[in-house]
């Protein structure tokens, strides 16, 4: 059975100390102001040597004969499950710890490193990996990954209007994207569009291009106002006749398997487990704050923790915490043994954890009463932030359809 190891606990303590010293005191700036999260995230990376580790890992990956490929130790390689478990578990610790205070930071970081760099690493040529991915993995540059459009969200490929048209050896890109994390500040953007060869839209190939900020015809909007997750800037992208060479087409080929519509299952499961880790951090923090508040707040001559209706809330929060942690542990175990979760398992994990986070954070607001509604007590921020976990990385309705599809296929 998996348990956090001694070292993982040490890492947790060290990251917690950092977050409490560097991020928590600046909460007003990040969560109620317009300070972007990148400078403090870079400091986090430098402090813990994550930039150096990313550089070394990148080099090792390129040196492998398969040029990347398998996520964990490559195919056929005999890797000790304990080592694999650590490889999977370790990146979750900063996610959990950051989410105790600032889930937006994780979104900004996750999209830059987990989605944008990962897309370049899995689809790009070696030159493209060296040109763009390394700087993203070290956080020297910030990335955005753009698929969503004003008229295409859950049905990402079906209703996609963004296009690439061939023009000699080059392509002309057009389209608009919205809800793009890091969009306002990104240096490097992976733009997903359809190759328009005059054929019907549903038969067009899906291609990924890499754009640099400031290219002619490419505009990045200021951050959009939103319900929560303020420390993660979200924006729109507009492309008007952006001219790019083949060197910006990921993989430098139009021949993509499944017409580019098959998102690797591995990407799904990484994203969905990331949401579970985020949920765990938020639940953990709420529980900690609530237990303390229940002991301190006195009404009717006794601490409110003496009231059974308050106890019920605390108990349900603990159940949620245990369940989410166990889902994560199970995910770590599955990968540690060289397997992948099924689509249903990955989706169930995301569905349950995000819902648990919404319930727990709202219950925390309730337990704090009027104070819960005031920003000073932090839980209202977590409640606003939690809601997004049910919407992005595939809405919860889409997760349900994935679970059902997987069940009915058996």
């Amino acid at each position: 059975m998996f348990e956090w190891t001694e070292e993982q606990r040490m890492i947790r303590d060290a990251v917690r100390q950092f977050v409490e010293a560097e991020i928590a005191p600046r909460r007003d700036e990040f969560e109620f102001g317009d300070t972007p999260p990148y400078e403090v995230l870079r400091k986090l990376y430098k402090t813990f040597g994550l930039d150096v580790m990313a550089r070394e890992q990148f080099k090792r990956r390129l040196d492998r004969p398969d040029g990347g490929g398998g996520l964990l130790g490559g195919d056929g390689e005999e890797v000790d499950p304990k080592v694999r478990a650590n490889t999977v578990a370790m990146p979750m610790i900063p996610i959990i710890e950051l989410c105790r205070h600032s889930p937006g930071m994780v979104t900004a970081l996750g999209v830059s490193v987990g989605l944008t760099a990962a897309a370049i690493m899995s689809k790009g040529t070696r030159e493209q990996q060296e040109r763009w991915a390394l700087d993203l993995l070290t956080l020297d540059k910030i990335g955005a990954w753009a698929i969503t459009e004003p008229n295409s969200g859950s049905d990402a490929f079906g209703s996609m209007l963004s296009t690439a048209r061939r023009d000699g050896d080059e392509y002309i890109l057009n389209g608009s994207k919205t809800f793009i994390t890091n969009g306002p500040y990104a240096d490097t953007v992976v733009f997903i569009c359809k190759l328009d060869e005059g054929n019907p839209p549903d038969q067009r190939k899906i291609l990924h291009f890499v754009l640099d900020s400031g290219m002619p015809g490419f505009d990045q909007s200021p951050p959009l106002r939103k319900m929560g997750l303020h420390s993660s800037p979200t924006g729109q992208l507009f492309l008007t006749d952006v001219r790019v060479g083949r060197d910006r087409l990921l993989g430098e080929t139009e021949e993509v398997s499944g017409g580019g519509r098959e998102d690797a299952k591995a990407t799904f499961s990484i994203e969905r487990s990331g949401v579970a880790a985020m949920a765990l951090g938020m639940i953990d923090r709420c529980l900690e704050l609530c237990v303390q508040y229940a002991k301190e707040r006195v009404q009717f001559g006794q601490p409110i923790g003496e009231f059974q209706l308050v106890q019920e809330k605390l108990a349900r929060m603990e159940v949620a915490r245990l369940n989410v942690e166990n889902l994560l542990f199970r995910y770590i175990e599955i990968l540690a043994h060289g397997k992948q979760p099924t689509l249903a398992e990955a989706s169930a994990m995301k569905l349950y954890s995000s819902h648990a986070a919404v319930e727990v954070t709202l219950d925390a607001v309730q337990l704090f009463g009027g104070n819960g509604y005031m920003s000073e007590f932090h839980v209202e921020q977590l409640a606003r932030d939690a809601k997004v976990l049910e919407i992005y990385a595939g809405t919860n309705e889409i997760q349900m359809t994935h679970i059902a599809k997987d069940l009915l296929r058996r």
Partner: protein
Amino acid sequence: MNVVVCAKQIPDPAAPGELDPNTKTLKREGKLILDDSDAYGVEMGLQLADKAGGGEVTLVSMAPHDEVSGLRTALAMGAAKAILISDDALQGSDSLATAKVLAAAIKRAEPDLVLTATESTDGYTGLLPAQLAELLGWPSITFAKHIEVTDGKAKVQRQTEEGYDEVEAPLPAIVSVTAGVVEPRYPSFKGIMAAKNKPVDQVTVADLGLSADDVGWKGARQEITDVVPAEERKAGEIVEDEGDAHERIVQFLEQLKVI
């Protein structure tokens, strides 16, 4: 340059401490952590070794139950190895006995420089640094807020109430550092992963060539005769403002002769 840093492992100050009613000493049964005060010495040692372009930091710690948790933290920061003295015979050791044990262990490491904190967080007698210097016969400089090592000498800015004194001593020397000396680093992830494989040399009192009679309850020159709760602070005086509060506060402060 090789630096020994004394690293005390103490009960987590965040948890309420408890005294053993029989021995009147602090209970040290649970997990012990690195005394925060010693993190400064560790950081200073790492920086000095780094600046000297070679050498390493060795930790020396005396603690019950083979405790290594606090040492791992310092090893994760970058110390190369540790000497841990853990022995049932040490139970009841007072500060002089502790100094004898630490001095014997320090000698083994043959350092150019020894760093300690000015006082520990749990015991805070502040006696150890001078006792160590006496036992080792090395110069002692206390309350360092800045250290430089050049030409075989430690050059130290020694914190005083008004400012600082500049003092120097030939090496090997013992220097106790304040919390202002450097900002301790966070251990890197890699450092934490590597810490488990760094050598911790566990030794007993006998290994150090000391007699069990010199340490522990038998060797103690100090006896705790009584422990009483600190006097509760008196409730402050509340000044209700009826338009003249500022005058009454000024009067009150004048009475105290603070203004």
